[in-house]
């Protein structure tokens, strides 16, 4: 069913995930991903006709919380793991084009 994964695809996914992989790693992961996808392919042999697609592995829903304020951590704790800070801000390399926003 599914096409085999090749190095080009692995390089693309690595790039999308901002991972800098060596050629050896690319080869290694291509092999591993191929094995995983082959296994997934097996499941395609199952007859899933008329079976609802599963949205979540737990058979529960509606786990909601009330709109009640709890304490935040405070800037110092939040910034403790940051490589760099600028006052109470995270300091990051200059962002050129702002395509952000939801």
């Amino acid at each position, binding site marked *: 069913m599914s096409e085999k994964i090749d190095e080009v695809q692995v390089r693309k996914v690595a790039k999308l995930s901002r991972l800098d992989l060596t050629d050896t790693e690319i080869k290694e992961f291509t092999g591993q991903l191929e094995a995983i996808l082959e296994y997934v392919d097996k499941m395609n042999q199952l007859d899933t006709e008329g079976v609802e697609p599963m949205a979540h592995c737990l058979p529960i829903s*509606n*786990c909601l*919380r009330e709109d009640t304020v709890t304490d935040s951590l405070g800037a110092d704790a939040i910034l403790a793991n940051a490589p760099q800070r600028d006052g109470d*801000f995270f300091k*990051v390399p*200059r962002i050129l084009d702002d395509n952000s926003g*939801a």
Partner: protein
Amino acid sequence: MTDLDYQVIVGLEIHVQLCTKTKLFCGCALEFAAEPNSRVCPVCLGMPGVLPVMNRLAYEYSVLAALALNCQIAEFTKWDRKSYYYPDLPKNFQTSQYDLPLSYDGFIEIPLETGQSKRIRIIRCHLEEDAGKNLHTSGSHSQVDLNRTGTPLLEIVTEPDMNTAAEVKALAAELQRIVRYVGVSEADMQKGHMRFEPNINLAITKDGKAYRTPITEVKNLNSFRAVERSVEYEIQRQLDEFLEHGTTLEMGNKTTRGWDDDRQMTVLQREKEEAHDYRYFPEPDLLPVKMNETWLADIRSRMCELPLQKQQRFVQTYELSDYDAGVLTADRATAEFFDEAVKAGGSAKRVCNLLTQIGLKMANDKGVSLVDLGVSCEAVANLANMVDRGDVNASASTTIFEHMVTTGKAPAGLAEELNLVQKSDSSELEAIVKKILSDNAQAVEEAKSGSKKAKKAQGFLLGQVMQQTQGQANPRVVSQILGDLLRS
């Protein structure tokens, strides 16, 4: 001579910030202009092992807004991860909704200048989280504040049913009115509570052949003016581009542009090739939400009469102009105040005049809303009746209204106190008029003459009566008496 015709096609994507107290997945407070990174917790940061839990109110607000937009509410909805990398997105994905949004297939009626309304279809409304904020400093670095991460946003996507920039603006304004009416958002543009992204292109007919220009999306517009201006700008730009270079939809992909407010123009944004490869997948840390009849009925019970319905009712029932009805229904509290004042016995037209010409002006000057002026709707109804009966004239009603605001006293007492009660008692006024007539024989003769001077003379006599009564006579009653006496 070429034969050219075109139609503008615009669809909108809108993000509305919901006015919950806390974020979508954690209890961090939503607070405008808080100290940087002071409203952040491990859930906001997407630390390993944390578990986000959906804010019930945010979900209910979304459903309420979707109902107000005539949407179908999904019985089953789930959330998905939208993957992209950006410094303001600490989790490296945004929790959003992909294939099973909480609502779909709705519409919004937008009021047009003509007084008619137009139906714009809504494809879907879904609930997602906002990202943080990047601040661009002048140096070689940027600053990131994550207070905004996880803020609940309702994303609304319309069909491309708008055909003018004015319609786009009308939709933006009507949506603002709706979400405020149902109380799910403050919809304060200055605070970025509403952001608009129009998708614009043109369907052109030239010499009998049909063309489409490439679609452009203008990102992150946060004022009605910018929305309208950017659409106007794009229409002209796309038309020029088509006429000069023949650029059509088939020749290129959708492009993204930003709005440069200083230069009043849209600017092409550089985008990475893979920018739209979001690799959505189901969010394993959040459970789906199932809607049931009881819950939906409960949410539905919080619905109110919507602004456009109210506006149309004011026009039909109270015979107000569409303009006045629009002013009164701009916000829900003012509209309800008006309704109550009419119920308390004031005539609709008079109450409308008092509120639009005096009350709203005073409120505006004081920087408060009408209902916070400290004047009751009964007092306004009483004042309206006093004007209608002729107890006080229109200019006196302004003075009385002003004193009602400053002193909190009732209008009848104030009219006495300020000596603003008009004399409408005909026998008393008749005596005064008779005296004026006997003192001004020449003017009476002219007034009776039917010549050109008659009108002027009658005005003079009226003026004399008003002077005699120190402006307290009801001019309508005086005119009546004067006319009768002059004819006799």
